[in-house]
């Protein structure tokens, strides 16, 4: 069964990627500071014995590979172990991961809702004023640093006209500003993608045939052209979702969004090895998994890809 072998191959690949990434992270963070010192704080009277005691309690005296093996075991058994400072890693991630996924999904939704109609419009009016305007705006969108856009939206909709919460996730309306920020940034790329794909499809022979048959313009565009263009658009959006997860970190900080980005930054600043290793692993696994899913969908749609 080639499909099964393909899946198996990719799963093994995913595991290897995760191990390499976490091994690197585990090694790198240990070069940058001692969690025992973080635990001790700045108190006077903290002695070297106190620090040694903390290191023992945190398991930092074990050789690196022993510590790493403990982490791998905790990953396999899905219990993720204990954070150095704040309880069970699984509980922390259980709180943060849904928030990140929700924000990512909402951002994608915002982007899809804007970019598909705009992209189609642009393609249909190629060279016209609206097409040029959309292309210029998307270039402007691409050039914005996303945190800047986020801060501008906060200034506008939370301070100047206080209709939306500035930060946090106390209510559903708090989702609007961060999702819009990321959505707009993604839209800038996606509009161009939709436009190019539509242009390519519209010039294909079957579209001309459909038109020649006298089908309505609506049927030609939405039933024939868009469906075919959709394959590559969906693929691209899938890949983008993977990258998006990693890219959410800054926006989570700006909006104090209680997600994986905020959790990872906390873990880095605290030198909380178990928590950081777990968050990074999960983000890595998610990106690999989305890639795998895209490959599979692609393979299912077009059997030639599987064989390759």
């Amino acid at each position, binding site marked *: 069964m080639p499909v099964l072998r393909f899946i198996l191959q990719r799963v093994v690949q995913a595991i290897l990627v995760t191990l390499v990434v976490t091994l690197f992270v585990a090694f790198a963070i240990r070069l940058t500071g001692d969690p025992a010192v973080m635990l001790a704080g700045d108190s*006077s*009277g903290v002695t070297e014995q106190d620090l040694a005691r903390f290191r023992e309690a945190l398991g930092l005296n074990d050789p690196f590979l022993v510590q790493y093996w403990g982490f791998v075991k905790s990953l396999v058994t899905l219990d993720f172990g204990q954070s150095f400072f*704040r309880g069970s890693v699984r509980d922390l991630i259980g709180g943060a991961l849904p928030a990140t996924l929700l924000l990512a999904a909402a951002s994608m939704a915002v982007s899809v809702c804007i970019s598909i109609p705009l992209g189609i419009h642009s393609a249909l009016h190629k060279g016209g004023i609206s097409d040029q305007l959309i292309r210029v705006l998307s270039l402007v969108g691409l050039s914005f640093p996303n945190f800047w856009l986020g801060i501008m939206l906060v200034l506008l909709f939370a301070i100047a006209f206080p209709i939306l919460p500035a930060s946090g*996730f106390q*209510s559903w309306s708090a989702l609007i500003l961060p999702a819009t920020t990321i959505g707009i940034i993604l839209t800038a790329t996606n509009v161009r993608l939709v436009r190019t794909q539509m242009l390519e499809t519209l010039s294909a022979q079957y579209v001309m045939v459909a038109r020649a048959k006298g089908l309505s313009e609506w049927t030609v565009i939405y039933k024939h052209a868009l469906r075919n263009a959709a394959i590559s658009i969906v693929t691209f959006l899938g890949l983008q979702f993977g990258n998006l997860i990693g890219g959410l970190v800054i926006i989570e900080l700006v909006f104090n969004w209680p997600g994986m980005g905020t959790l990872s930054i906390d873990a880095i600043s605290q030198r909380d090895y178990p928590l950081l290793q777990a968050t990074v692993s999960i983000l890595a696994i*998610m990106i690999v998994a989305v890639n795998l899913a895209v490959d599979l969908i692609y393979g299912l749609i077009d059997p030639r890809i599987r064989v390759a």
Partner: protein
Amino acid sequence: MKSISAPPTRNALRLALLASVLGAAVPGASLAETVLTVAQRSDPQNLDPIDTFKISWGAIGSNVFEGLVFRGEDLELQPGLATSWEFLDEDRRIRFHLREGVEFQDGEPFDAAAVKYTFDRLLGEQGEKGPQRSNYTSIKEVVVVDDRTVDFLMNRPDPVLLTKLAGYGAMIVPPDYIEKVGEEAFDMKPIGTGPFRVEEYTPGVGVKLVKSDSYWNGAAKVDAVNIRFIPEDATRMAELQSGGVDIALDIPKPSVDTIRKSRNLELVSVDGPTVSLTRFNTQSGITADPRVRRAIAHAIDTNAIIQSLLGGMASPIASAQGAKSFGNDPDLAPYAYDPELAKTLLAEAGVAPGTEISLDYPSNDNTFREVSQVMAAYLGMVGLNLSVHPYEYNVYYNDILPNGKTGALYYYAWGGWTFDFDNTAYLLYHSGERQNAYISDPTLDALLEQQRDTYDQQVRLTALQGVADYVYEHTLDLPLYNEATLYAVNKRVGGFVPAPDNRLRYMNVTVQ
């Protein structure tokens, strides 16, 4: 990995769960309830009083817990859970008489057994894993005399003990509750005798406190306090300006003007515990020469820095302590700004104009980043070419500073909540202290130890002032300023009393 590769069902469930939890936390559900919303920069990460040293804990824990001694916003020690205390057996025993009719928030009675349990836990196995124990090693044992009386047997005198009993590690905890729920659950949902109980703690997000009906000293004026952790300065200020929070802590200096100009907000300032100083490498390089150190001290106009960069929200200091600190010497004046004297001293020390020196600091301190640039300009005017090097916070405090890898100058900020110079001075000047890489001086060691050996406050004051004078005389440090503790408060809030040490109490605060 299973939970990741099965997103359609499990994550949908989690999202639904998250939605319902968050939905429940939306204020709309509680029309008659008054909720005070507070934003602070950091999450204490653990609510157990013995597992933390963080100021961020103080602003939460001071509402949930109480100690035998109480120290409010005026910094005076008062009876807390103990109504009185006496020193016995030539100060080797301190006897506390405990308050009647006090209960923990779950109804468990407060008594001598709870006090003993608290300190056995702090000094025993559980305390071993936390940072607070080192503050209480002067206590040998706590002995129950009767239900309402305990004796503290001392290993050695500890003049700061009573102050310490008013905060952090010494907060009284409930034995039955901890035994019942376990240590881990206590970290997240602790119980004390204070006016608020912890309803929910969501790491990285916030803590919800709810008024405790059984509080012995009256009832809080608001039903609940919603404390949110917002690490980004800009975001915290945006929430404040948009009315999303009633009180904001950790006000960044650049926001001071915006808050002052706002119609809805009020800036409240009080002398804080935090002192900022630049320290010198006194062992090698040109700053080993006291004349060079003194020259640098005279070359920098700290008053101008306070007025221009800190918006006046700080006081000049002459030693590493503010005016409220025990041990402060009001007669000691900061080094005068005198660039001509600085040039003369540098010439005497044989330092050629254009000599390079460097200053290190932790990169998370945005205020000091600006201060350091101004310092470079001042030093440039007397012929020293200062380069500044920011380091990541942990690298700076874990490696650069304790291992003596700093430049000729390096930054240090310290905010001992006890407001007792012992706390700061011992850390900065006693030989062998972890964050004191360069100073090892028998005179200072003797003075510091002398004031730790006695309860006689006059002896202590003399010794601590002696430390400050000695450090000043030898220019071991360049004290810069004592930062004010700033709070921004929405005008719909009433009864807010600023706490110099950030240990805010929300008991008497109201919201309209």
